[in-house]
C-alpha cells in the first residue's frame, strides 16, 4: 500500500484514505477568454512520464485537498504541499 504524507495530518497515511483529484495548478482563463483557452483549461493535461503535480484529497481523514509531486514511473510521492504554496523543486 502506498503511504501518502498528508501535509495537514503531518505523517504518512495509507493510500486508501485518499482520493486522486486530477492535475494541480490548473488556472481558469481570465475573462474574456477564447474557446481554445477554455478547451485547454478543461481538457488538456500534461500526463508526463516522470514527475507530475497532482491534487489529492484526504477524504477519509482530515478532508483537505493538497498537492503532491508523484513520480509516475516509480509511483513514489516525492513531496507534498498545501494549496497556494509554491511547487517545490525535487530531483527525480
Amino acid at each position, binding site marked *: 500500500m502506498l503511504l501518502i504524507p498528508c501535509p*495537514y495530518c503531518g505523517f504518512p497515511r495509507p493510500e486508501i484514505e485518499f482520493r486522486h483529484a486530477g492535475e494541480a495548478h490548473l488556472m481558469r482563463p481570465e475573462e474574456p477568454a477564447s474557446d481554445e483557452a477554455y478547451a485547454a483549461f478543461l481538457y488538456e493535461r500534461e500526463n508526463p512520464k516522470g514527475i507530475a503535480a497532482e491534487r489529492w484529497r484526504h477524504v477519509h481523514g482530515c478532508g483537505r485537498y493538497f498537492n503532491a509531486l508523484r513520480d509516475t514511473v516509480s509511483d513514489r510521492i516525492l513531496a507534498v504541499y498545501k494549496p497556494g504554496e509554491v511547487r517545490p523543486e525535487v530531483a527525480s
Partner: protein
Amino acid sequence: MADLMLTPRNAWADLTVAEIPGATLKPSPTRHRVLFQARERELETRMKAAGMAAPPAILRARMMDDVALLRPGPDEWLIVSEAEISPKWHEIAGPGAIEISHGYAGIEWCGPRVMLALSAGCPLDLHESAFPVGMASRTLYGKSEMLLWRQDHARFHMEVARSYLSAILAFFGETARHLPQS
C-alpha cells in the same frame, strides 16, 4: 404515528454484536454531537473568553468539563457528550454548527485484544507509538468511514454514521471468525 416519526429509532435496534474473547464492542453512552468549523485562533479566543482551556491540537481529543472536544481536521471540531450539550458550548461552536446527534452512533471498543480486532479493518498503525492515547482521527474500518479516538491503551471510542453501523458490526463479526483463538 407522529410520535413514532419524531422519536429517533435506536441505531442499534435489530443489530447483533459478535463476541470476540478479549475484544468487546458495545454502544457508547454518548448521545449528543455537534460538528463545527472554526479556525484554531478564533476558537481559542472564544474559548478563553468563556474561561476554558485551549482547544486540542490537530488529530487530538480533549475532555473539557463534561464534553469531549475532538479535532479530526485542521479547522474541524466535534463535540461529543453523554449529557445534553450546554448553551455555552453552542455559543462557542457558533451559528454554523451542525447538530448531528441522530445521524451518528458511538461504539465503545475495549479489551486486551481490541487492537488486533481493530487492525483487521483499520489501515492505520494502531501501536501506541503511532496512535497514542488521546489521538482522534477519521479513518476507515473495513469500507466504512469512522472516527477513531483512543481513550486508553486498550479502549477506543468510534463514531460512525448510523447507516454504517450494520456494516461495521458485520465486519467485526467476520473478524471474529479469522482471529486466532487465544
